């Protein structure tokens, strides 16, 4: 990757931002134009993200590629030379995450076209959110990183509060409050690092060259871990997740569970692992412990849920637990697994929410025991659901397995007992998913749901995009693993055990 690709990275988050601005100028009655425009825009984003993913340069020995910087604030007060600059660049981890975002936003945009209530405003907020997400993944300047991180969070409140369902005000409020509380920790951590480094710069690459005091690292790492962990639904800061997901509209659930939660784990890698390696090594077992607790806790809680979205929400907690488990190992394989799991879970859970949304829009009911025999009524829907479910329970050949395998291997290297528990969690996952399958999909066709139709073509298209990603990652994970492992080996020297 070169600087031109770096400009592409900038454009990656400018496209949604400018699209949002442009949409503001479009009269909201121009529904078909809005649909066409968002389709084009999301497709361009998808192509760009795919290009960025593919153009990752394996020959490069630098940690970040495609670096492109525009100075902004320099030499003013405490801000030193090149203090704040719009600096973008990616490593393999970010490349994978950008591709994930590209996929999910394409699918999310397509399913959102059926929204009837204020579709223009919905897309404006959604695209601002996406701009934040792309920017956070690409940004190498902590100031802008945090700015875009917040940009990715804030539209969520309105999106859930306005377009959500069930207890939307409660869900939106809870989600926002907890995430913003987490952001405060990240914010303070960023400024502590900034002050401690005494470089007068927010440049991540520069800050990463500093050897921070060990005690300082041990002190600051939990701030980042908890702050980002809140967004990643880390136990015990997960409470927003089921409620938030349950009340969010389809595309927002997809983006949120699919991408935004990964911002949290990504933040731990970017800030925690790269800036504070010793702190990360010190707190690794703690992270692993929280991870395994979350994995078990989420899975066992999901056994008891009857609301489909709540169940998926708890399942997300469980899967994000795997991510933290992998991160906590602090080994190349473990972190690779965590990043893979981020991708795998992102695509899979997006598919879940898409499907739940497709059904809920017709039935306005998500209570699992209410349904029966949907496989006969909605065969395509059921097949997609089963694919997502099987990926979720870690069936080999689908995305979940590859990721979980790496995590398990990483954990087994250090703590076989925790590894055993993690493997057991996969069985519990199978239990709740299969219980749900046998109740909802199988069994006699219930006449109550005679009016349910199978998925529309738009939904099929976006579900196919996601399902293909699941299969692709599951069968041929090398493109991801090569990039991720390469970056970890270059970028996180502490993990080279």
């Amino acid at each position, binding site marked *: 990757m070169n600087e031109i690709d770096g400009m592409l990275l900038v454009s990656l988050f400018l496209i949604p931002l400018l699209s949002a601005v442009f949409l503001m100028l479009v009269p909201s009655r121009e529904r078909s134009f809005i649909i066409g425009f968002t389709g084009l825009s999301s497709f361009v984003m998808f192509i760009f993200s795919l290009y960025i993913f593919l153009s990752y340069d394996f020959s490069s020995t630098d940690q970040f590629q495609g670096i492109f910087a525009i100075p902004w604030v320099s030499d003013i007060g405490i801000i030193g030379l090149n203090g704040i600059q719009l600096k973008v660049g990616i490593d393999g981890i970010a490349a994978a995450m950008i591709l994930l975002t590209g996929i999910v936003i394409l699918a999310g945009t397509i399913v959102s076209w059926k929204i009837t209530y204020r579709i223009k405003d919905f897309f404006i907020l959604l695209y601002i959110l996406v701009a934040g997400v792309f920017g956070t993944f690409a940004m190498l300047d902590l100031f802008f990183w945090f700015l875009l991180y917040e940009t990715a969070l804030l539209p969520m409140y309105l999106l859930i509060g306005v377009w959500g369902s069930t207890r939307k005000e409660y869900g939106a409020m809870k989600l926002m409050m*907890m995430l913003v509380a987490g952001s405060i920790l990240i914010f303070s951590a960023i400024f502590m690092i900034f002050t401690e480094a005494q470089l007068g710069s927010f440049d991540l690459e520069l800050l990463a060259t500093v050897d921070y005091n060990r005690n300082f690292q041990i002190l600051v790492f939990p701030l980042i871990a908890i702050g980002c962990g809140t967004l990643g639904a880390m136990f015990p800061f997960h409470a927003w997740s089921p409620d938030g997901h349950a009340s969010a509209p389809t595309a927002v659930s997809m983006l949120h569970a699919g991408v935004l939660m990964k911002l949290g784990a990504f933040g731990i890698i970017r800030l925690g692992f790269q800036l504070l390696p010793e702190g990360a090594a010190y707190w690794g077992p703690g992270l692993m412990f929280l991870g395994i607790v979350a994995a078990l806790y989420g899975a066992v809680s999901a*056994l008891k849920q009857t609301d489909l979205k709540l169940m998926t929400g708890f399942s997300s907690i469980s899967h994000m637990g795997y991510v933290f488990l992998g991160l906590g190992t602090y080994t190349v394989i473990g972190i690779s697994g965590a990043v893979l799991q981020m991708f795998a879970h992102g695509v899979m859970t997006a598919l879940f929410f898409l499907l739940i949304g497709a059904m809920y829009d017709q039935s306005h009911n998500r209570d699992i025991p209410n349904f029966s025999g949907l496989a006969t009524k909605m065969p395509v829907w059921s097949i997609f659901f089963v694919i997502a479910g099987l990926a979720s329970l870690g069936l080999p050949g689908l995305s979940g397995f590859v990721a979980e395998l790496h995590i398990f291997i990483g954990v087994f290297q250090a703590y076989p007992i925790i590894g055993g528990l993690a493997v057991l969690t996969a069985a519990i996952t199978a239990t709740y998913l299969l219980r749900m399958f046998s109740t909802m999909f*199988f069994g006699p066709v219930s006449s109550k749901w005679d009016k349910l139709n199978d998925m529309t073509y738009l939904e099929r298209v976006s579900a196919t995009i996601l399902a293909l990603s699941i299969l692709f990652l599951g069968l041929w994970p090398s493109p991801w693993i090569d990039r991720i492992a390469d970056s970890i080996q270059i970028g996180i020297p502490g993990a080279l055990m």
Partner: protein
Amino acid sequence: MGLFSVIGMQQAWLLTIVPIFGFLIVALFGKRIPRQGDWIIAAVGIFCLFASISIIADFQSFFHGHGFEPNGANVLSFEWINIPNYLLIEYSTFVDSITIVMLFVVSLVGLMVVIYSIGYMQGEVRYHWYFSLLAFFLAAMFTLVTTGNLLQLYLAWEAVGLGSYLLIGFYWEKQSAAEAAKKAFITTRIGDVGLLIGILLLWRASGTFDIQTIIGLAEASYFDSTYLTISMIFLFFGAVGKSAQFPLHVWLPDAMEGPTPVSALIHAATMVVAGVYLVSRMLPIYELIPVAQNLILIIGLITALLAATMGLVSQDIKRVLAYSTVSQLGYMFVALGVGSLSAAMFHLFTHAFFKALLFLGSGSVIHATHKQEISSLGALKNKMPITFLTFTIGALSLAGIPPLAGFWSKDEILLYTGEFGSVFYGLLLFAALLTAIYSTRLVIMIFFGKPKDSEAYEHAHESPKIMNIPLIILAIFATVSGFFIFPFVGQLFGFDDGFMGIVYLYHPHVFHLEFTTMITAISISLLGVLLGYFYWFYEDGRRANNASKWAPEIYNLFLNKYYIDNFYQAFINKFVLGLASIIAWFDDKIVNRSGIDGSAQILNYVGYRLKFLQTGKIPNYVLMMSVGILLFSFILLINY
């Protein structure tokens, strides 16, 4: 042999790829293809049989004298995941003697079942879906048996589980089928947890997934012995789940909810023997650790006995056969437990044919009468002569009547168990007796006596040819496959030591006739058949009824499957769901209500209290402001 030389051992991957394509084509476009694409799957089945035979032929050409040395020709691998210096996972195929036995069994039974299904499934809804799943299952099964590394084995292991799940739940409109599918998948999944833990433990110590490398390392005492024992027991746990051994045997009888041909293929001949295959594959390691091997022996023995007693009282044809399968799998594990790979593989080989035959025969009966309960069948022998004949061959083979196949293989197991210890030998003989009794019972209840359900009887007719041909072919195999034990048969195919020499690479056993064992076995089998005849043939089985009344406790114990299912159900309901309730309660009350909402409410309350500071009186504000100014000025004063 020129025709067969196209596909060698290195091309074993074709066995995965071709069925997968068959699956994809039929699953996606099946509805638009003439005959819903069943002919595609049949072609796939024929190809697989052809490929298997040509691989066997290739194998034979690498077979020199008394042994087969694994070499490059039987291995193919490419990197699937590679993190340099950290992790290497390959896709690899490996063909050796165990593989070729499995290949032949899977491809032959598979083809028979596919052909049979064309008749049996005629007119079903989701016809194409059924056939595509068969292809999927075959692909997974072939991957499983040709794999060279443990991780790929796990992949295929799970994939066959998925195939089994989808096929058991094929009639998903029936709630019982859905439940059975769920039960099968979850139960085997619990075993798979052990398998994966075992694999990862082995990886942790050795850094590789390659089976032959691990075996080599183990033989070179690379592993700590306790560690190895634990890992191998975990690995065996996977086999327990998949092969329906005690205590995870509960899923197999329920799995009979699936279409009957599926039961023949998956739940008798192929998938359920995956555990046997796994243990066979790893047997060189198990032989190094007596603890694990004894465990295998004991589990096998318990299963063989328990399942046989349950089979004795079950009222459903397919369930009787399922219990019989469980029991026979127990036999195979006993053989592995006493260290006789050849006996286990031989029994696997013969069992696959006669059990598939029995299942397909029962399918034929069910197809004709639409009844599964043996209490409503009877006197069908004249109505369905071919089914009757083939079924009886299968049952006698199962009972161990010479010269049918089952006799020879069971005899081998008994022989080696006898060498191992007389207690085991005695118990196994008892199981053999029970086997003979219930196979006789089954035949008598279905084909003899008076028709108990006149409607079913009137309705009964012989099955179409497409179903009968597989029955006949399998009956032939059920008869002759036992003769593979004689060295001259093996020599006929170019293997010097016959079947025993092929399978057991490490210490080849040569078959010899052990007359004491043989006569004991024959007499036990005949005794069993006579007892069955005596109890069920006369007076419409009044004696059998009396026998069940004679000891109702035991009868009920058998009938209720030793209450193991009930125990599991109670465990899940009380313990697992209880735990889930506790955690859900914890999450709701402690984390959400108290933790999150609680802190929000505290903030709310504090805010409510604090708002009264906002008096609206300007002097108050000024006062506050001045206090602030004062504080700041004091700070300045102290600092300067």
